[in-house]
């Protein structure tokens, strides 16, 4: 594992305001994720896992605390700069609604490269092909999402998360909608990617899925209850 943390969280707090009431979903979270790490974040439903991942993924901002991503203090970044960070440095895999509706697999995997604007058409074609090869879906390149199984959709999402060669892959319950056999199959791709050096943060509430990671952080009521 590298010496410099890709993610460094210090005392992260997140309040949700609902009218007069305010609910603290994160109550002070601190940990580091180093290059090559595979961290599973576990915890019961409502413990703040997704909130934490959205902050890590720069989709949301913490109410309090310090977040250094890849050496950069991104709290001061503009929305467009954050978009660029997400585009170049972070690959997302969500639980559901992963694919752009009514676009085929090729155009889904290609899309982050369009937003980057720096990758030629032929490079894009090569990168889509090799990303799909990584998840063994070369033959589905022209399929639409409604022609894919749940496991295949998640693998396309993994391919798309890889295509910009990001610093880190963030996965929020990627197997939440899958049966256990398919879940293991999808997880094996994450494990293989980590073996090749990709840094991964995985969120799950299932013990056996969390076990694919190198270490596990357990959240409870917005705090870290246990690290192992």
């Amino acid at each position: 594992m590298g010496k410099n943390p890709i993610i460094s969280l210090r005392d992260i707090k997140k309040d949700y305001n609902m009218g007069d009431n305010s609910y603290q979903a994160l109550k002070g979270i601190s940990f580091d994720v180093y290059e090559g790490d595979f961290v599973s974040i576990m915890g019961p439903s409502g413990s703040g896992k997704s909130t934490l991942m959205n902050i890590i993924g720069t989709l949301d901002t913490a109410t309090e605390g310090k977040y250094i991503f890849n050496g950069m203090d991104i709290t001061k970044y503009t929305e467009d700069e954050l978009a660029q960070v997400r585009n170049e440095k972070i690959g997302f895999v969500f639980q559901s609604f992963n694919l752009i509706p009514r676009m085929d697999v090729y155009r889904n995997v290609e899309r982050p490269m369009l937003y980057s604007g720096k990758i030629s058409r032929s490079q894009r074609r090569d990168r889509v092909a090799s990303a799909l090869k990584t998840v063994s879906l070369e033959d589905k390149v022209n399929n639409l999402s409604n022609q894919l199984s749940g496991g295949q959709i998640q693998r396309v999402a993994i391919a798309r998360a890889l295509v910009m060669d990001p610093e880190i892959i963030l996965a929020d319950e990627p197997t939440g909608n899958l049966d256990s056999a398919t879940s293991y199959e999808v997880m094996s791709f994450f494990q293989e990617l980590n073996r090749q050096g990709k840094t991964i943060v995985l969120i799950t509430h299932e013990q056996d899925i969390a076990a694919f990671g190198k270490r596990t952080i357990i959240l409870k009521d917005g705090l870290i209850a246990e690290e192992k």
Partner: protein
Amino acid sequence: MNFFDAFNISFLSLRNNQLRTALAMLGIVIGIASVILIISIANGATSSITSEVSSMGSNLIAIMPGNQDKGPAQAMGATKSLKYADALYLKNSNDFPNISYVAPVVQTSTQAVGNGEDTNTTVMGVSSIFFDMQSIDIDYGDFFSEEDENFYSKVAVIGPDVAADLFGEGADPTGQIIRIKSQLFRVIGITRAKGSSSMINPDEMVYIPVTTAMKIVMGQDYVQMIQLSVTDPNQLDSTISEIKSALMERHSITDEKNIDFSITSSKEIQETLGNITGILTAMLAGIAGISLLVGGIGVMNIMLVSVTERTKEIGLLKALGARRKDILLQFLIESIVLTIVGGIFGMVVGESLSIAASRIIDIPFIFQAYPILLATGVCVTIGVFFGLYPSQRAAKLNPIDALKYE
């Protein structure tokens, strides 16, 4: 993201949502089609009116009795203030070098009887020069001459409808006798069918020498109209004012308000008609413009629905690194492509309907580029204008709110 990629994405998104796309386009198709149709009908009608009016030439002046400012009774020619002598004066005086011909006209509605038949007709007493001035052609026989005028000849040139009514279709009645108000006239010519223009049907006329008409048939010294033609149409206005002051002097009128005749020129009529048809066109185009506006609002509605419907998609795109302007561009291009493609359909529909309409209502179909250019410009404007707000809404969505949207 570069423009080409943005266009590609927008196009695919439209193509992959055919129902939504078709609904959004519908208003634009109808709007553009009606603009094209209306402009085309207005143009066709205008050109058929102007060609009719310009066939009278731009060098004619008509003097009528009565003051047009003093109400319709006088304007209709019910007064007796314009004399045959006025016409002779204008003809014989050396003060009007620009006047080439003077043709006094009297007319009355009556019956013509001949060959045991009768028919209702308008008897016009005219000078021989009148036929030339009105571009009336002859089918059988000949026109009467200036000599017939001088000798009060009882000769008649009749319209083809009158000839058909009295002597049967296709007969040559030259040399036959007809009776008008108990006077017998010899038919010496049949005019060529012209067909009815706006109000008067020259085919239903009986023309007799103006002198004969005044003295023998009607017993009057006044005329219903004096027609003049000028040599130089560019000096029409000054000729008119010369005639006006000369006639005022002859009628012993000093105050313009008491004037007892009115002068119109064919040029003036053409201009008035041009104005009327112009106003009509503008009004119709305004109505069509409103339907375009409604179409544009339709596009905005569908785009807003589309943004709401695709909130989660927009959240996903932002997670993938789409910046505000990427989202803005995509939705804006969708809206512009919608309106332009809708506009193209609208043009095709509009031109087809125009061709059909021109056949049905018998006006010329005139293909013109400017409504198409206009419509294209309008479409792009509508696409940008009505697409901008929904696109901005999409672009400004907070990624996390969008992703969580249910």
